C-alpha cells in the first residue's frame, strides 16, 4: 500500500504545520477601488480590453444581480456578506518579460515552489521565454494555466497543444483571440441570471481558463488550472469555459489554495462545459481553499456554479471532486443530458472538520432518451463540521429508458458534527429507472480494532479507513491527483480523533 504509506508520512510531516498552503506572497499588486458598482464592471472590462458586446453582457448580469437575493436555502450559516467591502480586481504588476529565472520576481517564483509545482513548469509559469517545453523525466506532461488572484499569469505547453488544434488559454486571451467561440458559448450553459452568485460572477469575472478541443481530437495531455487567492480583501471570480467538439476527449484538472487569514474571502466561480456528439469531458477538482482555523475563524466562502451540457448524442461529462477546503462550500456540479444516450457522472468526496460547512451535490437533468447518470457521494464530518448532500435527479417525459443510480454515504467522526442527505427525485417517464441509496454511520469499532491490533496508531487507522471509504471516488481521479487527494483527506481530519 505505497499510497497509504506515503499518506502517513505526509501526515507526520505536516503534523505541526496544519494548512501548509497558508502563506502569503508579498508582491506588488494593482487593485481596482473597493466596492461593486457599474464603474467597477466597466473598469474590469476596460482593463481586459474587451469588446463592446461583452461589456454589455456584463452590465446585463450586474443589472440582474441587483434585483436578486442571496440564496438562503442551503444548510449553511454565515454572517451577511458586505459586497461593497471587497476588491473585485487584483493583479500582480506585470513587468517586461523576464529572460531568465534570475529576473523573475523571486516572490512569485517562491510561491510556485511552495505550491509544489515542478521546477520545469515553474520556469514557464513565471513567463520565462525559451524555457524548454519538453516533459521532465519522460512523465506525461500536464499543461497548466495559473490564475493568481484576478488574472491568469501563464499557460504552459500552448505550442504543443496548438499542434493538435487544441486551444488552451486564459479566458481573457480567448476573448481577444477567439471571440467568435467565446461569444457563441459563453452563458449558454449557465445564463447570466441563473442564480445570485452566477450573476455576480458574470458581472465581474476577471479570468479563468478557456479550452476548445476540435472535432475528433483526443487532447494529448491533461489540462489543469491552478487557482491561487493571494491578496487580502479580494474575491476571486473566475470563469471557465470548456468546449469539446464532436468526437473529442479532454481531461481537465482544477486545484486551488489561499493564504490563512482571519477574514472570510469570497470565491464565486462559474464553470461551463459543452460536449458535442461522442465527446467526453472529464473534470476533476481538488478543492483545498483555506478552511479557517480550529475555532472557525477565517476561510474561503466557496460559492460555485458548475454545469455541463451534454448537447450531442453519446456525449459524456464526468465530474469528480474532492472538497477538503473552504469554510463554506456551496456547489452543485450538474449535467444537462440533452443528447440521446448521453452520460453524466458525479463522484464526490466532501470532508468537513472543525467548523467547516459543506452543502454540495449534483443535479442530473435527463432530457434525451436512454440518458444515464451515476452519482456517488461520500461525505465525512468531523469536529463541528456540517456536511450536506443535496441533489436532484429529474427525468423528463421524453427520456425513455433513462437510468440513474445514486449512492450517498456519510461517515461521522465525533458527536458534535452533522451529516445530512437531501435528494430530490422527479420522474415523469414510466420507462425510466431511478435508484437511490443513502447510508450514515460512524467508523466501526471492529475495523478500528483490527487496524490498531496490527500496530497502526488511532490516527493512521482512521486515515486508512477513510481512504477506503472514499476509494470509489478517488479511483476516478487522475493518478497524481489521487495521491494528493489522499494526503489531503488525512490532513483535513487532523485532530479529529484521539
Amino acid at each position, binding site marked *: 500500500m505505497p499510497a497509504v504509506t506515503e499518506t502517513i508520512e505526509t501526515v507526520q510531516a505536516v503534523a505541526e504545520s496544519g494548512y501548509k498552503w497558508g502563506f502569503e506572497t508579498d508582491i506588488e499588486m494593482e487593485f481596482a477601488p473597493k466596492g461593486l458598482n457599474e464603474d467597477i464592471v466597466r473598469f474590469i472590462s476596460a482593463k481586459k480590453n474587451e469588446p463592446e458586446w461583452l461589456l454589455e453582457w456584463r452590465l446585463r448580469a450586474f443589472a440582474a444581480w441587483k434585483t436578486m437575493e442571496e440564496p438562503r*436555502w442551503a444548510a449553511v450559516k454565515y454572517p451577511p456578506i458586505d459586497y461593497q467591502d471587497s476588491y473585485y480586481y487584483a493583479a500582480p504588476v506585470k513587468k517586461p518579460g523576464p529572460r531568465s529565472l534570475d529576473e523573475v520576481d523571486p516572490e512569485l517564483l517562491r510561491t510556485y515552489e511552495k505550491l509544489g509545482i515542478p521546477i520545469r513548469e515553474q520556469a514557464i509559469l513565471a513567463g520565462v521565454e525559451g524555457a524548454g517545453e519538453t516533459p521532465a523525466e519522460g512523465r506525461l506532461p500536464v499543461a497548466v494555466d495559473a490564475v493568481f488572484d484576478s488574472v491568469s499569469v501563464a499557460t504552459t505547453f500552448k505550442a504543443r497543444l496548438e499542434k493538435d488544434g487544441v486551444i488552451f488559454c486564459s479566458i481573457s486571451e480567448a476573448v481577444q483571440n477567439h471571440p467568435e467561440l467565446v461569444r457563441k458559448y459563453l452563458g449558454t450553459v449557465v445564463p447570466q441570471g441563473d442564480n445570485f452568485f452566477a450573476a455576480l460572477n458574470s458581472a465581474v469575472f476577471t479570468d479563468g481558463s478557456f479550452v476548445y478541443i476540435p472535432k475528433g481530437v483526443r487532447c494529448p495531455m491533461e489540462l489543469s488550472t491552478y487557482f491561487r487567492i493571494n491578496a487580502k480583501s479580494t474575491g476571486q471570480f473566475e470563469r471557465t469555459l470548456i468546449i469539446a467538439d464532436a468526437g473529442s476527449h479532454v481531461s481537465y484538472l482544477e486545484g486551488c489554495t489561499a493564504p490563512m487569514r482571519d477574514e472570510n474571502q469570497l470565491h464565486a466561480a462559474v464553470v461551463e462545459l459543452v460536449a458535442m456528439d461522442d465527446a467526453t469531458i472529464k473534470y476533476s477538482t481538488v478543492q483545498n481553499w483555506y478552511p479557517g482555523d480550529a475555532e472557525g475563524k477565517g476561510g474561503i466562502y466557496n460559492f460555485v456554479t458548475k454545469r455541463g451540457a451534454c448537447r450531442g448524442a453519446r456525449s459524456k461529462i464526468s465530474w469528480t471532486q474532492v472538497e477538503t477546503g473552504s469554510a463554506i462550500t456551496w456547489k452543485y456540479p450538474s449535467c444537462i443530458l440533452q443528447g440521446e444516450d448521453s452520460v453524466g457522472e458525479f463522484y464526490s468526496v466532501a470532508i468537513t472538520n472543525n467548523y467547516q460547512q459543506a452543502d454540495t451535490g449534483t443535479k442530473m437533468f435527463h432530457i434525451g432518451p436512454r440518458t444515464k447518470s451515476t452519482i456517488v457521494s461520500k461525505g465525512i464530518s468531523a469536529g463541528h463540521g456540517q456536511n450536506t448532500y443535496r441533489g436532484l435527479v429529474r427525468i423528463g*417525459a421524453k427520456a425513455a429508458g433513462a437510468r440513474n443510480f445514486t449512492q450517498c454515504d*456519510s461517515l*461521522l*467522526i*465525533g*458527536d*458534535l*458534527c*452533522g*451529516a*445530512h*442527505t*437531501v*435528494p*430530490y*427525485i*422527479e*420522474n*415523469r*417517464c*414510466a*420507462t*425510466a*429507472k*431511478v*435508484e*437511490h*441509496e*443513502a*447510508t*450514515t*454511520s*460512524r467508523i466501526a469499532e471492529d475495523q478500528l480494532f483490527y487496524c490498531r491490533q496490527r500496530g497502526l496508531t488511532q490516527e493512521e487507522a482512521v486515515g486508512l479507513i477513510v481512504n477506503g471509504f472514499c476509494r470509489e471516488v478517488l479511483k476516478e481521479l487522475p493518478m497524481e491527483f489521487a495521491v494528493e487527494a489522499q494526503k489531503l483527506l488525512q490532513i483535513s481530519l487532523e485532530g479529529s480523533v484521539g
Partner: protein
Amino acid sequence: MTAAQTGAAGFLARYEGLKDHLPGARKPWLNALRADAAAHFAARGFPTRRVEQWKYTDLAPVAQAAFAEPLTSVGGSVRLPAANSPHRAVFVDGRFRLDLSTLDGLPFRVRGLAQDLAEAEPHLGALAKPEAEPLAALNTMLFEDGVFLELPEGVDGGLLELVSVAVDPGRPFAFHPRHLVRLGAGARLTLIETATGAGTCLHNPVFEIDVAEGAMLTHGRMLQEAATVFHLSTIYARIAAGATYDNFTVAAGPRLTRNEIHAALVGPHAACHMNGAQMAADGQHVDTTTSLDHAAPDCASRQTYKTVLTGRARGVFQGKIHVHRVAQRTDGYQMNQALLLSEEAEIDSKPQLEIYADDVKCSHGATVGALDADSLFYLRSRGIPGDQARAMLVEAFLHEAVETVTDETLKGALTRVLDAWWERQGVAA
C-alpha cells in the same frame, strides 16, 4: 354565512362568524387556542408550492374552492362501510354518532371530543403545531368534534374501528375532526380507521397521539373516499420509552390525499414503524409526507412506502429522519418504491436524513420505475398472458408492503382494499 368566499378567506370568515358557537366557546383556554391558530392561518393561508414541504403538492384546487359546512345530521340512517371489528366508533361528517356506534364491552371509554372538552384540556394542542403546519392551524381553528380515547395503564384495548363517513349534501363542504388518542403505560390497542365519503368535500383531520412508556398502538388507516374528496390528514405522535407506534396507511380513493405524519421518539428504546401503500389513477394525486424525530437514544424506526400510479396520476413521497445529538445508537431505515404504469404518471420523491449523532445506523433507499422487464419475461415465458403477468407483479409489489403488518385482522382488511383498487383499474382499462 359567507359561502361565496373561497379558500383561506372563506375559512377565516367562517371562524369569525362561528367562534361564539363552536364547541367550547365559553372556555377561555380553548378560545385562546383557536384564536392563536386563526392568527397563524391568517398569516400563512393555504401553503403554496413555494413552501418546501408543499413543493410537489398543489393545494390550489382546495384554496380556490368555496366550502360550506356539512349539514347537521343528528339522526337518520347512514350507509356504513362493512365492519372490520365488532367495536366501532362512527363519525358522520366529522361528528360523533353514538347511535351508530357499537362500543359495548370495550375495556376503556370512547367519547366524542365535544362531549368532554374539560378533560381534554391538558392534551388538546399538546402535540399539534399550528405555527408550523397551516392545515393543523385550520383544524384547530374550526374543529367541532373527534374521537377522544384514553386507555388506562396496562389495559389491552383489543380492536377498535374508527369509521368516518362523509355524506354528500350536494354542494362543496368541509370538516376538520380532531382526534385525541392516549395510551397509558403498558396499554395496547389496534385502531383501524376507515374513511369513506362522497361529494366535493375537504376532510382535514388532525390526530394527537400519545403512547406512554411500554405501550403499543397499531394504527391502520384506509382512506377510501370518492375521487371527488380532498383528504388532508396530519398526525402527531409522541412515543415514550419502550413504546411502539405502528402506522399503516392505504390511500386509494380521494382526488387528493396528503398523509402527513410527524412522529417523535422521546424515550429510550422506543420504536416507530410507518408503512403504507398509496395508489392513484387518472387525475388523482397522492402524497405521503413523514417526519421522524429521533430525540432519545437507542430508538429504532422503520418505514416502507409503496406507490403505484396509472393514467395521469401523480405521486409524492417525502420522508425525513432527524437524529438529534442525544440520540446515540439510533437505528433508522426508510424505503420508498414507486411503480409507474402509464406514460403520463409522475412521481416525486424526497427522502431526507438529518443526523447530528455519530453512533447511528441510518439508511434510506428509493427506487422509481416501470415493472421489471426481466420478471415480466419470466412469467410470460411460463405461458402467463401479459396482462395477467403485469397484474401479478403489481399485486406482489403492493402486498410486500402489507407484509410488515403483524395484526391479522388489519392485514386482511388492508389487503382487501389493495385488491379492490387493483380490480377497479382492471375494469377501467
